[in-house]
């Protein structure tokens, strides 16, 4: 994989219209399977707060991912890549085959060795982003195969501790021989977030306000600090659980700890 621009890479279909769209697309860096990938050009992405990613951040992160993929492709010639929606980091790798040079005792050790050897898949390298720390969520087995799902954490300097990245998961799939055969992730580039300016109490009040009149009487639980991903940036946020007193609603509201805006809402009831 080279770092050349290839406008034909998007939008994953052939023809002149694809080229036309790709040419005009601002900040596009989608990288379809098997096609050269390149990060956004300078000036396409615009930093709006001090810790939003700059084009240089994205480019370095993307190149780090490409480098990791190139090293994997050397051993997995059929390797296929699906890039995330913003095109910076991979969403999944298939037709992958990787084994540590020496056998490791457990699937977890193998998965961790894979992640450590390919941190570029998470946009880490050449100062592109902060290295995440992975906490094992679960090992899901399907016959002889094991899928290890990890919760990424990142260190927050101002707090002196690592926080979970809300909503992000990275998984590593091992076959019966212990080889890594798949990788999926929805982890964005990790950058140092803006410092917190609001308190947990303020976050709880803001969460209740954000829910609107249907949740006027909602129970609001204790806010806890997490990292959230939005617009290519890592934000320090409060995760506030709320429960409507009436109705099948259980929303988790993410409040930006820097400016108090709503980062996201999740209704965890699935119908």
């Amino acid at each position, binding site marked *: 994989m080279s770092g050349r621009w290839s406008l034909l890479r998007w939008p994953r279909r052939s023809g002149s*219209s694809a080229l036309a769209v790709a040419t005009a697309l601002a900040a596009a860096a989608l990288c379809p399977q098997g096609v050269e990938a390149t990060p956004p050009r300078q000036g396409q992405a615009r930093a709006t707060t001090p810790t939003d990613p700059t084009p240089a951040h994205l480019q370095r992160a993307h190149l780090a991912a490409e480098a990791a993929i190139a090293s994997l492709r050397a051993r997995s010639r059929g390797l296929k890549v*699906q890039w995330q929606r913003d095109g910076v980091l991979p969403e999944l790798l298939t037709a992958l085959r990787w084994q540590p040079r020496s056998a490791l005792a457990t699937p977890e050790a193998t998965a961790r060795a894979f992640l450590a050897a390919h941190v570029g898949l998470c946009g880490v390298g050449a100062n592109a982003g902060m290295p995440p720390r992975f906490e094992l969520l*679960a090992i899901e*087995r399907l016959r002889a195969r094991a899928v290890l799902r990890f919760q990424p954490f990142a260190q927050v300097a101002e707090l002196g501790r690592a926080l979970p990245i809300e909503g992000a998961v990275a998984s590593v799939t091992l076959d019966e021989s212990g080889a890594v055969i798949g990788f999926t992730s929805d982890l964005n580039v990790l950058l140092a977030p803006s410092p917190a300016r609001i308190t947990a109490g303020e976050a709880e009040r803001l969460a209740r306000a954000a829910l609107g009149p249907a949740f006027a009487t909602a129970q609001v639980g204790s806010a806890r600090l997490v990292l959230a991903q939005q617009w290519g940036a890592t934000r320090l946020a409060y995760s506030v659980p709320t*429960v409507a007193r009436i109705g099948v609603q259980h*929303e988790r509201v993410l409040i930006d700890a820097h400016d108090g805006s709503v980062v996201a809402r999740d209704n965890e009831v*699935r119908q």
Partner: protein
Amino acid sequence: MKRSLDVCGACLPTRGSAAGLALMALLGGCGTESPGTNPSTFEVVGADGLRAGDGVGPDAGSDDAAEADAPTGALRGRVYLHDPVTDQGETTLVTLVQPISTDGTLHGPYANVWNCLNQPGGPKVRYGEVEVGAFCLEQQTAKVGDDGGWLHILPPTDPSDPEDPFAEVQMYHHVHAMHAYFKDHFGLSAVDYPLDALVNVNLYIDPKIAPLAGLSPGWQDFANAAFVPKDAFAAFHLPPRKADAIIFGQHGKTDLAYDASVIYHEYTHAMIGTTRLTSMIPDFYGIDHMPGALNEAFADYFAASMTNHPVIGAYAIAASGAHLIRDLSIVRRCPLDLIGEIHADGRILSSALWRVRAQIGAQFVDGVVLRAVQQFTKATSLQGAVKLILSEAEGEDAAMHAAFKKIFTEQGLIDCLRVKPWKDWKAEDTVDKVPYRLMGRGKLGGQGFPDGVPGPLQFSVALPSGTKAVTLRWQAWAPGFFSQPTLAIGVQPAKPVTLNLFDKGKIDAKAVMPMSPDPGDIAWQSVTLTGACLEGAAGKLYVLPLNAANADAEVTRMTLTMHTTTPTGPNLRTCK
């Protein structure tokens, strides 16, 4: 930005909630159409097709033979294998999994079933500081008989019985059957604990309060089913639970627990859909709701595969409207059949998987799909999902992979761009009767989307030669509000409108135009476009709906008018 979907209506899509409507949503605002359509005929699958309740399902041979083999009724019970409609009212003899309870109740290794009785004593429900009623009273009423079985528990003579113990037996059997299907055939172990399952769920509304809240007094139906995280039960002031639960309502003469396909759907959510495919996330074309649609697709597909029958909700969902039944044998395609509602849009993938299954068998297809699903994250895209499924199939068998790929291609699942033609359209006249929903800033805005929150779909307008102007009209409203919603459209000639994902979702388009009150009809909004928006369009104009308000909005009708001469009027907008 990532969030999961908020849909009201179990397997049922309903309108969004606004102030005071959450209760109505709970109570079953999912339509009141009369029940009943016969499901389509069964589709026969290959010889390796897995059978319903394999291992824990119907006993071999006829009922008589089964009973002859069982000198006692130990662990025996009767259930609907599918539902009362599909089974034409006939129950089937089955062997239940040995409960782990010591009091004869249906508390098994993988299901702990509770009957929610319409009796006093349930937790109080408050709306604000006002006590408006109570939740039903949870008890375990189905008790083992003297013969060690449950053959004495049969469907009630009155199908509207809100407390029948038969619902418990039905639920107990089918949850264990589905668990066995996932675990015994494929080794899944994510729900290796007794999942709480509530049947006959109803809610009591205090007669003194009901008129003030605009509700009917007394016991209210719950025309729905849902997977509910353990914490969400605090909404009803229920005792703390150690784990999540699935709940099923009683709605008139319909007991949602009687429909095995609905049980399997909800249980599949519990098994594979709680830690993945929960995000709603912007992509270059708008809000990508497809992770949620994929979640529903798999819940439907595995429910259908389990029953070896393509119809989901022939009995339970039909009670809320025959149009809501999901028949996977009806082929849907991307993008033409997209409507932006996750249950409906999930039918594109689920119907494709059903076709592949019919060709090459359940064992192979289900295994391939589960291996792919296991690797999904919360935000896995449609494209990523399709690639993973194809990759898993390719790793197994080239011919099977080709079958997957052919059908996925035929149904537009590969490289599907969420763009469909703007044409004269009326939600009520469509198969699904679902409006286009545009979420507001209250849910998705944050500090992003300076031009408005984009919808999940874009529309294309084919421009005949000589077109000087185009009038786009829609009938839109914000549920719970009297005023018209604040909507706009991003317009781009020749190519789709795109979002800048690194600049807070700013629209990259030729123009962003407001949809203004239509001069001909106050319930409508319109815009007439001329000028640069049409120049260089190469015969096609792309339109992305935008919602600049906090509240959600729904578009229920759309019209399109071409002009060969430029019209006049207050809503004429000239693109520069």
